[in-house]
C-alpha cells in the first residue's frame, strides 16, 4: 500500500512543522505545506494530495470547499470522515481546530490515523501556547507587583517584607488578585504625583 500523500495548510509555521514531522514519523508523505490559500487550488492540482489538513480557523476553508462542486478531477471535501455528523472524531477535530479534506478515493479507514495525529499535534500546540501565555502573564504580573512594592517602600518608608505584606493584606481584604491591588497602587500613586 502506497503511503498517503498529505498537504498541510496552516498560517502557523511552527505548528505545521511539528505536524509534518509527526506525519513523516508515521511513514506518510507530506507533499506540500502552505501558509495561506494563495495558490491553494493550483497546488492541489500539482501535488495531488490524498488528504488536506487545514487549520479550522483559516478563512480560506470556503475557497477549498468550492472544489466539491467543480468537477470530478478535483478533490472532494471529506465528509469529515463519516456519514454521520455527530461522530466523536469530528467533534474532537473541530475542538482541536483541525479540518480535513480527502480526495475522492482515499479509503476512510486510512483517514482516521492521520486525523488522530493532526488532532494530537494541534492540541499539543494549543497547550504549549496556553502555557507560554501563562508564563508571560505571570512575568508581567511579577513586574507590576515589584514596581508597586518598590513604590510603597519609597513613599511609606517600609521594608520589602512589610510592603509585600501590606499589599497581600489589601488583596485578601478586598478578595482581589494581588496584581490588581498592585495596579491600583500604581494608578493612585501616578495620579498623586501628577
Amino acid at each position, binding site marked *: 500500500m502506497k503511503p498517503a500523500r498529505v498537504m498541510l495548510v496552516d498560517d502557523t509555521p511552527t505548528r505545521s512543522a511539528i505536524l509534518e514531522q509527526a506525519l513523516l514519523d508515521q511513514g506518510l508523505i507530506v507533499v506540500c505545506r502552505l501558509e495561506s490559500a494563495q495558490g491553494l*487550488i493550483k497546488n492541489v492540482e500539482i501535488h495531488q494530495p490524498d488528504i488536506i489538513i487545514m487549520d*479550522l*480557523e*483559516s*478563512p*480560506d*476553508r*470556503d*475557497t477549498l*470547499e*468550492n472544489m*466539491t*462542486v467543480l468537477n470530478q478531477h478535483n478533490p*472532494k*471535501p471529506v*465528509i*469529515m470522515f463519516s*456519514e*454521520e*455528523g*455527530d461522530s466523536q472524531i*469530528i*467533534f474532537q477535530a*473541530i*475542538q482541536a481546530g483541525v*479540518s480535513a479534506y480527502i480526495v475522492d478515493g482515499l479509503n476512510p479507514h486510512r483517514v482516521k490515523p492521520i486525523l488522530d495525529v493532526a488532532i494530537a499535534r494541534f492540541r499539543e500546540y494549543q497547550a504549549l501556547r496556553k502555557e507560554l501565555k501563562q508564563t508571560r502573564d505571570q512575568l508581567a504580573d511579577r513586574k507590576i507587583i515589584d514596581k508597586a512594592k518598590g513604590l510603597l517602600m519609597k513613599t511609606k518608608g517600609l521594608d520589602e517584607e512589610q510592603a509585600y505584606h501590606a499589599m497581600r493584606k489589601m488583596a485578601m481584604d478586598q478578595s482581589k488578585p494581588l496584581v490588581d491591588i498592585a495596579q491600583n497602587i500604581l494608578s493612585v500613586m501616578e495620579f498623586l504625583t501628577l
Partner: protein
Amino acid sequence: MNGAKVEKKALKLGYMPLSDCLPLLVAQEKGFFAQEGLEVELQQEVSWSNIRDKVIVGHLDGAHMLAPMLLASSIGLGGLKKPLITAFSLGLNGNALTVSNTLHKELFTRNAAEFDQAITMKHVIEQRREEGLAKLVFATVYPYSCHNLQLRYWLASADIDPDKDIDLVILPPSQMVDHLKLQHIDGFFAGAPWNSVAILQGHGHCLLTGMDIWENAPEKVLGVTLQWAEENPNTHNALIRALYQACHWLEFHAEESLPLLERHLSLNSPLIDQECLIPAITGEYIFDHNQAQSKAPGLLVFNRFMANFPWLSHGQLICSQMKRWHWLPENTDCDALVASCYRPDIYRQALANVTMPEDDFNNVHLAIL
C-alpha cells in the same frame, strides 16, 4: 417573556461579520435575548464552513447561516451531513455585483446604454475569447450560497455558461477588495458592506444589486440542527421572538445601529469604517466612486414584506436552482427537502402576536426571467 420555560438558557450563536448579521447584534445589545430569558454569547466566525461544522457538532447552538446551506447540509453536499432547519429568515437581499474599473470600462465601451446588462457581459466575454485573452474571473463567497445562485442566474440569462465561459472562484468576503485591487479577479458578487468598501476606495464599480435579479430574495437565516430544535422547542421559540424584535427595531432604527455594526465588523478588518456601512443600511446606495448616491431602498430588508417568514417558496427557488446546476441529483424531491428544512410551522407557533400570511408560499419576484 412569553410562554413556557426555556430548556437551555446559555446559548452560543455564530455569525459572519457582514451587515446582515445585525439582527443578532441588536438582539444582544438591546436586551431582546435577555427579555426572553436567554443568555447569549455571540461568536464571530471566519468561514461559512466553520459556521456549518460548529452548528452541526453542537459547538454553536445556532448561527447566521446561508439559506442554501440548509439544503446542502441536510443531504450532505460538500461536508458533514446533518439535517439543518430554519424557522426564521434574518432578512432579504443585500448582495451586489461589483466589477473592476477595467472591466467596467470594457462594458461601457461596448455598450454605454446597457453596460450593466448581462448581454453586454456576454459580448465582452466573446470579444475576449476572439482576442485570445484569459477568461474573466468572478468571485462569490461560498459554493452553496444565494450569491452564487444569483450570479449564475444573471449570467445564464444572457446564455453565459458560468462553468465554462468564466472562472468562478470562492473567496472570503473580507478578501474581495484586495483581490479586485490586485486584479486577481474581475468582479465579485458579495453582501454588504463589501461592495461599498470597493467602491468607496475607488477599486470598482457596482453593476447591479441582487434585487435586479431576484427581488426580495432569500439570504441569511437562523440555522439550527433539527435535533437541537426538537430538544429545545421553547428556547427556539424564545430565540425567534428575540430576533423578531431586533428585526422590527432595525426596520425603523437601522441608522442608530451603525456604531454597533462598526464595532463588530472592524474587529478583524481594518478596511471597515462607518462610511462604508451606511449605503446598504440607509439604501442611499453608491454604484460608482465618482457619482452621487442612487436610491436602492430595500437593499437590506430586515423586517418589512414579512421578511422574517421562512417561506417555503424561498426553499423551492433555492432547490430548483441547485438542481439546475446539477449540485442536487435530478430526482431530488424538492417539496420534501424544502419541507424538512424550512419550518414556517415553528415560526407561526413562536410569534403569536405577529400578522401571519395565510399561505406558506410567496413567490420571489424574478426580475429576469
